[in-house]
């Protein structure tokens, strides 16, 4: 992760390594930050790269 100081109180974080990819985030790491089984289960389930939007003007909502 590339950290870019913007000001004394603000930072920007730019992904710059394989460790920043979602695939590299482990369950153990997430548990270490306080997330429960539900959160980790959905994390594993929805690591999808792309999701196609609804076709044309047929918005399902």
């Amino acid at each position, binding site marked *: 992760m590339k950290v870019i100081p913007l*000001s004394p109180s*603000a930072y*920007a*974080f730019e992904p710059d390594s394989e460790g920043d990819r979602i695939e590299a985030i482990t369950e153990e790491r997430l548990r270490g930050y306080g*997330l429960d089984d539900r959160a980790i289960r*959905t994390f594993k389930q929805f690591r999808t790269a792309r999701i196609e939007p609804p076709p044309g003007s047929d*918005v399902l*909502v």
Partner: protein
Amino acid sequence: MWEAVKQATVHQKPHLIIVSGDLVDDPIIYNLRLVQGDLNDLAQRAGACVHVIAGNHDVFRSGLNTVVGRSDAFDQVFRDVNATSAAPGTVAVATPVARTTVPQGRGMFRWLRDFLRPYEAAPEPPPPPIAAARPRVRSLICQPDGLPLPVLLALIDSNSNDAKLAFAAGEVLPHELVALETDLGKRATPHLLRIAVIHHHVLPIAFSHGRIIGNEQLMVLTNAADVLALLARHRFDLILHGHKHRSQFVRLDFSPADTEGYPMAVASAGAAALTRERNHTDSCGFNFIEVADNGRITVTSFAYGYGKAPLIDTVQGTRNIDYRIYEEPFAAVARRGYWRARQMHKIWCDSRIYSFEVTENGDLIVDNRLAGLRHAAPVPNVVTCRHVVATPAHGRLAVGPSLDEASLGRQVKLSEGPAIGRRRQFVIAIPGDSLTSEDGGGYLLHHEVANSITLTAWEDAERRRVNPPRDGRPERQEWVSVLVIYPIEMLEIRLRLPSAFEKSQPAIRCERMVSPSDYEIDPEYDTVKVDDDAQPVPDDALTGYTVQGLTWLAAERRWRLKVRRPMVGCRYEIYWPLPATPADPEIRSQTRGWRDTLLALELRLRTGSPSAPAQAAVQVFDELTRDLSTMLSGSGGDQRYAAALFVYDQALLVLRPVLSRRSWADTPVRHDFHIPLGDGLAGAAFQQCRTIAWSNAPDQSALVQPKPYPYEPGEDAEAERAIVAIPVYHDQTLRPPSPWNAIGVVSYSSWGTLSKIPTMGYPTASAFVAAVNGFTQVQFNRLRETVLGHVPP
């Protein structure tokens, strides 16, 4: 042949035609009237103003000053005899007089008799008697009408009648010099071009071969140095002369290293229409002089054979054989331009240094230092300078302008004047007594503009799509510039770019904002007036000259452009290319589709008619909010927090809230809480495709600031302690992340005292930051699947 010369002259479409003498060989009224008529014809055909001066052949028979004295015929034909000072021009219609009969004789005797024959009596009444104490002044200063820029013309008479048997030699008599000096001293209105016309040479002649007929003693003025000194003192740009009928071009610079020096050009041409070679004259020719809008003088010297028709244009000839081009070095153009500006303005300064710093966030920090400000006498008690701060529509003047301590200590005062559209106007008042000190007046002004600089080609395209620029600027460029509005001895522009641009090579662009014919001074600030809607005119020659002053200062990691005596009315710009990431058309199209879908979801939720997937999406977002609170708080969850999913609306160039959750209220954040692209934290995170973490620290910058939270009336309006803005994408695998792939931003605000957000900037927190980013993206993916109805509520 003369007709061909006229045709070639007309083809050049001149504004001004100068004839430097020797129109005739026998200076009688009849001959001069014939020439006058022909020059009138030329003037009418060319639509130009024609000015002539007398050559030695126009006032002395065969051009030799002997015992007969000077003829007044030229003055009677070409000058207003009733005026105390001569008037210019070939304006009257020629009235030929009867030709006198020349007595017949043989050989040398006939020549000598003709030579010593008195001039014929003039049919016009003689000029009024002039008091003996005031010798007649034949030289004159005039300003021709109808020219595209103000031109001062000095027509200098060098045919002295005082020195008998001077033959072809010339002198500008002392009383002529005094009259010229006096008249020039009275010329209050500065002229953008000063041309002196004199018949005799002011410099030695190249290739005279030392022969008697081409003897320089008869060609060069006996007091040439006095004349040159006078013209240099009054900063003449061009000296045109004839006499020897040889083309020659010289640049003079009496003091090139001196700031008071002024470059002059001296040009002569061959005879216009000789049918055969005479007296070792040059081949026939004339000079075509062009003055560009930036003041650059270019002399094209045409040469054609005796009895031959001249070239119509350079395209017909061979350079350096049929014509030669003398183009003024731009350093000389700049020096002359500076002195012209000094003549027109009362104020000038030794230096101006503009320091621009572009931050990683696209903010612009500006320091404007002025030193050595001077004012022509009388110096007023207070001198005011105007400082205009222009911010783009999406930008914000976050800091200042403000003066530094040293300026305040010198009693310099700053106040704000009326705005000019989107531009804020500030007035700096400088005590007059500081201008008379050795260091002159000065100040340092500082200001900062947030969200001012475009950082990517994508952003440039987005802004152009919604607000097309009217100034014709090229795409995919960003720039900083300085407009020079009064004379400056040394201009310096310093530029520091973000790290992403350090490998970019900036370039220079110079543009004229004021044309020479429209140069006006604002009397309040003594600056050149520039219209608000003035269209810049690129000046490639000025750009080519200026770029030499651009250097990279490696130790300071900044670019520096130094310009000595920048041209007033011109804008000096440093620009650089914007990085672009090629867009995958399919991904870009799908990304836009998701933005539209989620914006439509917000509308359905707000109007109270959401579908089951929409309601399920709200629950997913609530879960995401709780999980972020768990991860980002230091105590298992924040007591007070707020989160929102902002989606990019490309029609308005803003981020709009679609889903939100606040710990103290069941209602969402206001739907009209729009965050402009690049502004606040969410706007900056989306534009730069970077997660941004901010904390409400005591030393926080005014540039990187969140938009004020839109509290409802009656709510506790406590400021957030920390905020993180996380971009979410359509395809999170793309590297590098790009705005055309970004759907929006998830923003989480914490009011907790133990929030981990302020620690995200530590190097050891990189894994934590990656986890927060990744978790947010995955939950956003789940939300999208829910919107599609793929995930059961």
